[in-house]
């Protein structure tokens, strides 16, 4: 869909972004980059991506609309343009996606003046990588059942427990930490802290995913001391704070320019169509197989529908309620993506066995790797099963399953 016109200032800024990205596009890495920021595991990739984010920050593509006093560029309504152009340009994502996507919005809404001034600039420049300490072993989808304890000790808090699925934990200087300050109250017993990862009581152990990647980590916290001024919002307000950033994640994330992966869903389905047109087996291309084509088109149809739903969500008389479409976004996006990658493996046939790094792998083995990583989307951040509960209960008003 072509989009409506920019204002003069907007189109000038859009032009600036385009030309800057064109001139400053970084050279390809020796080894392929992971498909998303949360899978970055090795030092060569880290330094390359930190450098890239720092330059984009200087260029004004990150923190575009943030006040200058917090290290931002002080514009208004320009961030969305910058982010769209970054996506379109097909350049690398920003490694500090948790810092940009979760830490910065949280601090902007709930942080103290000091916290904002201390933490925001190095988030934007990727000088400080951030990770998120919400999930715990055994908690799974029941996030609020977390057990990591925070005990008041004078002006400090003493933290003990462990976290899991911690992306970037092995690179991070800071962690967004949820800890339990009251065992009696499941939801109001949780408090939100900023935890220094360089503290001696912090141990980080990489987790290898089925892809072989180790972007995720286990983090063990033993008698970690956190001064009270690293607490965010009130004692017991942690769950509220976490939810407020989780639910507005996409929106808020865009607010400072987080881009965790470089590809739009349409770009993926279009590459799949191209691959189907160029993959020949048993005497014809897979695109010439009407049954395969029908399945590709069903994915295309659903991808277009998601795009149009986002458009419809902004019209009250057509959106069926404010949260109905937004709450479907994560579920549909992850499941359509999984279906698409599964289909891609079918299209590749025997070549689907060739993994990233194999000299004959189609599209550099992106489909097998991408397929396995779609489970991050359908499992983490509230599994698809939990998403359907939420939709049935919050949107359609059906009784709670728990």
């Amino acid at each position, binding site marked *: 869909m072509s989009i409506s016109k920019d204002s003069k200032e907007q189109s000038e800024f859009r032009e600036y972004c385009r030309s800057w990205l064109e001139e400053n596009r970084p050279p390809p890495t020796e080894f392929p980059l992971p498909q998303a920021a949360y899978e970055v595991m090795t030092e060569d990739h880290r330094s390359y991506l930190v450098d890239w984010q720092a330059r984009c920050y200087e260029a004004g593509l990150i923190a575009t609309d943030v006040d200058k006093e917090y290290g931002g560029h002080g514009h208004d309504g320009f961030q969305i343009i910058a982010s769209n152009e970054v996506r379109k340009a097909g350049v690398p994502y920003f490694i500090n996606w948790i810092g940009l996507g979760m830490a910065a919005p949280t601090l902007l809404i709930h942080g103290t003046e000091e916290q904002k001034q201390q933490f925001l600039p190095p988030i934007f420049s990727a000088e400080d990588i951030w990770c998120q300490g919400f999930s715990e072993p055994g908690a799974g989808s029941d996030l609020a059942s977390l057990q990591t304890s925070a005990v008041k000790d004078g002006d400090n808090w003493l933290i003990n427990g462990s976290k899991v699925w911690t992306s970037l934990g092995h690179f991070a200087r800071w962690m967004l930490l949820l800890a339990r300050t009251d065992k009696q109250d499941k939801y109001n017993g949780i408090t939100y802290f900023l935890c220094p990862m360089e503290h001696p009581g912090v141990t980080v152990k990489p987790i290898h995913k089925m892809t072989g990647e180790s972007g995720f980590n286990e983090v063990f916290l033993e008698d970690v001391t956190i001064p009270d001024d690293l607490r965010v919002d009130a004692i017991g307000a942690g769950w509220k704070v976490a939810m407020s950033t989780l639910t507005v994640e996409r929106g808020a994330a865009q607010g400072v320019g987080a881009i965790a992966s470089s590809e739009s869903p349409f770009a993926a389905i279009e590459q799949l169509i191209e691959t189907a047109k160029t993959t020949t087996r048993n005497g014809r291309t897979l695109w010439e197989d009407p049954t395969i084509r029908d399945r590709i088109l069903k994915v295309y149809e659903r991808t277009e529908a998601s795009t149009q*739903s986002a*458009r419809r969500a*902004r019209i009250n008389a057509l959106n069926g309620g404010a949260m109905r479409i937004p709450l479907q976004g994560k579920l549909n996006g992850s499941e359509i993506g999984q279906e698409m990658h599964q289909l891609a493996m079918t299209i590749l046939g025997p070549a689907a066995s060739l993994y990233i790094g194999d000299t004959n792998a189609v599209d550099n083995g992106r489909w097998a790797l991408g397929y396995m990583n779609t489970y991050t989307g359908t499992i983490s951040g509230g599994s698809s099963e939990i998403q359907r509960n939420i939709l049935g209960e919050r949107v359609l008003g059906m009784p709670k399953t728990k």
Partner: protein
Amino acid sequence: MAQPKDFGFGEEQVMLQEAARRFCDDKQPLTALRQATAGSEDPYHGKDRPGHFDAAAWQEMVELGWTALAVPESAGGVGMSLVTAVILAEEIGRAAMPTPLTSTLQTTYVLKAAGSPANNWLARIVEGQAASLAIQPHDGSHLPDSTTIVVKDGRLSGTASFVQDVQKTDFLVVAAKESGQTKLYALNTATEGVSVQFDKIVDLTRDQGRVTFDGAAAECIAEDGAKVLAAAMPAILTLIAADVAGGCEWLMQATAEYASVRTQFDRPIGFFQAVKHPIVNMMIAADETRSLVYNAACAYDTEPEKAALAAHLAKSSAADTAEFCANRSTQLHGGIGFTWEHDVQIYHKRQLHSKQLYGDAVWHREQAASYL
């Protein structure tokens, strides 16, 4: 050409949507339908089923300007967008209302595509005449040149099948071939040489028939009929898909409400994920169709080069959504939804009918693929 971010759905549209919803609620079409069809349940005996037509309600729609809505001002209409017409089709579908409005709107888009030669027929629609399309042969083909009717000296011979709402229509737009070339003709349903055989169909909210022409005199409104039909087809498809979006939203809401009140094993059945999650999937399907419908309508209004692809996607999504929502709503209502007395079965049958009208999901995805 740029599409407006809001589909061109503005204040006027909000007001029309509210008015249409209120109108459909007031009419309680299914109550009237039940009275009209009572006693005709037995499928084994009898070869016909009475259609149902609330002529008074139709007159009100005409007075509300709904028939004039899509007619260009040049032909005495209001000349509003397809997005606007879609609002009506969606509400008609939500109410499962037996009315020739959708057929008449679809015919309107064919007449519009035919241009000035069709203006006086458009004027009749403004006046409140109902119209329908006679363009499909017995095998149900729906290509722009599928007709098997032939013309000689301006007189039609042959049969058109699957003519929608034919019991309720004042005139027909007919596709017919003259020496191999498909042309479009218009004539009154009551014209001498026109005979209608009513089908006994599953859907209780529509009627359908076979129209046989035996040298009936008709007025030619388009020399290149296939081109005109192809130009109008995106609108025809989008309007059916809108009916499905409305109907499946109703089915989804009705099932969610039932799941919240009906108890089994000492719990409301909505507690059970085997009930809750399929209803959520119904919502997702209905939302996808609805979004594709407004995109298709907006493309038809403002970005014609994208209209065909967008309409194929809307109808393929609608066909899948119709099948899935009809299926799950009956299953999740259990025995009660399986009874004649329950409204779910009326909506179920209407979705089955819409699913196949002018092409199923497989067909439309195959057409869509040709644009990629």
